[in-house]
């Protein structure tokens, strides 16, 4: 092996209710009655920040959670109901100082103009720590909440057949347009557009504000934004991707893509596929992080973690399955796995705590020190913005004249 120091890992945590296991809310540490309070979310994010994590993501959707893809499941034994992710992220922003805040937004049913200014504002509120995770929705029941488009019924399996793929392609292409609009709006004010020139009475130099004039298949947006360019210039854009269609979105528009490899070979293949898509999109030279998503049950002993998983599965009445690899074991074992994945080309991880109240502290208080001992994780926050933590430069404004 070479003598160069090992690559630094980036770590994010995905926050979703009381945790990713559907029975997580039954655990002592879960606080299910606090789920709809600001204090609950503030405590989780403070814990993540204590562990020097790069960022947290906030899951969201435009319908009650369901164990079925395209319809409600009518269950009363799991967490149902949630708060808007952008507002939750903003609510905790003034209470934190370093950690990135990345709420989920659904491109299919929302306005890119509203989301662009919302994330720009989150960036102001957090002084440069905002991002978004974009998702699409082919779910008929979510579409029915808006009444603007009707989607035929669909299951997770049917999404894989040709008709399902065609629908997904359509939705992801729309999402790519959506992100294009969001990004152009972030740039629609040049950084020094506000001049406050008392002599001429001009507050702005209007030559430094730009109509974005986006016209696409699904919508057109004029601009400029009503919100000036945010502190990071371009807040972080992230997306979860499981197959070729969303890889293309990641390759075209994202700063971070989340993938779900189950072993190192898969990780290597996924990274290669995304790099190829990146080249096709003409972005080969742009920095693009590929993070692996892993569900984690962390305990001091492997058997304790496995027993906990089994106990939760028993409470849920069925074994928990996931798109991502499910890990149950010790912090050292998880560190081994992450390093193995990192060698396969992943630059970071988005860990999904099985039980937020238990496994998040496991990450921050046991995994992180273990990674620090191995010299692969920061021992202090080294940058003031989320882009900075991820080694991403503040981008030039696409509309600024390059003199």
């Amino acid at each position, binding site marked *: 092996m070479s003598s160069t120091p090992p690559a630094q890992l980036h770590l994010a945590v995905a926050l979703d209710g009381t945790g990713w296991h559907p029975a997580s809310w039954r655990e002592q540490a879960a606080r299910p009655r606090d789920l709809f309070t600001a204090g609950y979310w503030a405590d989780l994010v403070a814990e993540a920040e204590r562990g020097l994590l790069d960022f947290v993501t906030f899951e969201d959707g435009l319908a009650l959670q369901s164990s079925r893809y395209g319809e409600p499941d009518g*269950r009363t034994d799991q967490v149902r109901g949630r708060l808007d992710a952008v507002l939750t992220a903003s609510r905790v922003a003034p209470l934190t100082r370093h950690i990135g805040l990345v709420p989920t937004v659904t491109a299919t049913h929302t306005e890119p*103009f509203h989301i662009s200014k919302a994330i720009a504002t989150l960036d102001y509120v957090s002084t440069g720590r905002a991002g978004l995770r974009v998702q699409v929705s082919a779910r008929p029941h979510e579409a029915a909440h808006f009444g603007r488009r009707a989607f035929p019924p669909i299951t997770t399996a049917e999404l894989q057949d040709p008709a399902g793929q065609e629908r997904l392609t359509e939705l992801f292409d729309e999402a790519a347009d959506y992100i294009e609009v969001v990004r152009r709006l972030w740039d629609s004010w040049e950084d020094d557009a506000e001049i406050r020139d008392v002599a001429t009475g001009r507050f702005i130099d209007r030559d430094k504000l730009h109509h974005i004039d986006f016209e696409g298949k699904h919508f057109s947006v004029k601009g400029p934004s009503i919100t000036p360019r945010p502190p990071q210039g371009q807040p972080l854009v992230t997306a979860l991707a499981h197959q070729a269609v969303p890889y293309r979105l990641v390759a075209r528009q994202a700063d971070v893509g989340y993938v779900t490899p189950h072993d190192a070979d898969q990780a290597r293949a996924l990274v290669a596929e995304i790099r190829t898509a990146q080249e096709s999109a003409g972005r080969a030279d742009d920095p693009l992080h590929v993070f692996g998503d892993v569900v984690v049950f962390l305990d001091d002993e492997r058997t304790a973690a496995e027993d906990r998983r089994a106990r939760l599965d028993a409470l849920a009445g069925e074994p928990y399955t996931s798109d991502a690899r499910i890990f149950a074991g010790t912090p050292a074992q998880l560190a081994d796995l992450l390093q193995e994945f990192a060698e396969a080309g992943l630059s970071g991880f988005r860990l999904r705590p099985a039980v937020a109240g238990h496994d998040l502290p496991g990450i921050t208080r046991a995994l992180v020190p273990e990674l620090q001992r191995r010299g692969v994780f920061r021992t202090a926050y080294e940058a003031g913005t989320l882009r900075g933590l991820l080694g991403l430069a503040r981008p030039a404004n696409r509309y600024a004249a390059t003199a």
Partner: protein
Amino acid sequence: MSKPLKQIHLAAHFPGVNNTTVWSDPRAGSHIEFSSFAYFARTAERAKFDFLFLAEGLRLREQGGEIYDLDVVGRPDTFTVLAALAAVTEHLGLTGTINSTFNEPYEVARQFASLDHLSGGRSAWNVVTSWDAFTGENFRRGGFLPQQERYSRAKEFLATATELFDSWGADEILADQATGVFLRDAKAGSFVHSGRHFDIHGQFDVPRSPQGRPVVFQAGDSEEGREFAASSADAIFSRHATLEGGKAFYTDVKRRLATYGRRHDELLILPAATFVLADTDEEAGELAKEVRRQQVSGATAIKHLEFVWNRDLSSYDPEGPLPDIDPDVGTDHISQGRAQVRMYRDPLATAREWRELATAHHWSIRDLVINTGNRQTFVGSPATVARTINDHVQADASDGYILVPHLTPTGLDAFADKVVPLLQEQGVFRTEYAGTTLRDHLGLAHPDSVDDRVAS
């Protein structure tokens, strides 16, 4: 006969995107940075105000085909700022102006319900309508709504959002770890709405929030707007801040409540009001003139005249006489994206009237705009302003005021430090918050208790 003294309600309007806001003052800070909002909100909370108010504008204003650059330009996203302010305040109500044209009920309802949870019951929604294709160019559907349908959509929007807020009972979340029952009823949040503007069904995904529903404001002034407010609003953000104008509006709107089976005290009238404070009334009068000159620069005066003349007047000297030519009464208007355009319905008559005024008083263009424009509502020493506000409220010209300072973010400081203590001494303004929710501050009942009363 002695009527008990009314308690005054006070709110703080973050300085807006218009020429009331003086940005040229060296003390003027950022209107975008969160630190400005936090400072302003903390000042309002220190003064025990009822709530903070944010206005809306979804497209930058243009005049003569160019972005209007003489006033403050730009603002952050309303929901995002209010959620963050919930973290730096404990009691202050958080009122956001949110459009019913360029949004969908499901999304807005989940945003307000979320804000209400995240603020412990302090959210309020000022429902506004718009229709213009100019603003619509920033949105997926474009300018889809004919002007005459804007209230029809607003009413149905609010009614639909209310159905969503009410789709959850207060006790649906059991989260019983022992029995494994999280939700009392699998049907929680179910809704079906089928109407002219919205045809939606499903399950709302935010459980009942502390206030049940956000407090609802209405700001329109037309006949339709007044009826809308009387039927569905908890408070009106009005523009009638003078004693006589306020009384007339107050009487008119409160009279309409009975039609909808509502009590006199179920709708608060809160006009927007500006103020100038100094040690003496005389000094305040002088300062008010100075502030008016800051608000109306020569360039601003010309642009203001252009609203009425509807033509390019850039060749005119603001310190000189009014134009001899008449306004262009064509259909396309030079100014887009602002409400004032509709205030001058007969530009020829306005121009005639202004010329007469200018001649009589020897006014330049700038003098005219300064003198005919919005003068500050309350000008005087702290004692005078406190007395005037109290007199207005006790005379039923309003139930209180939404104060609009002209400086960001310190414009509220003097009012908080000097006027509020006088109102408190007179026993007409709270010295401590009595409750935790905005409904508590405003004396509005929780919707569940109102619904019980109506049902019984």
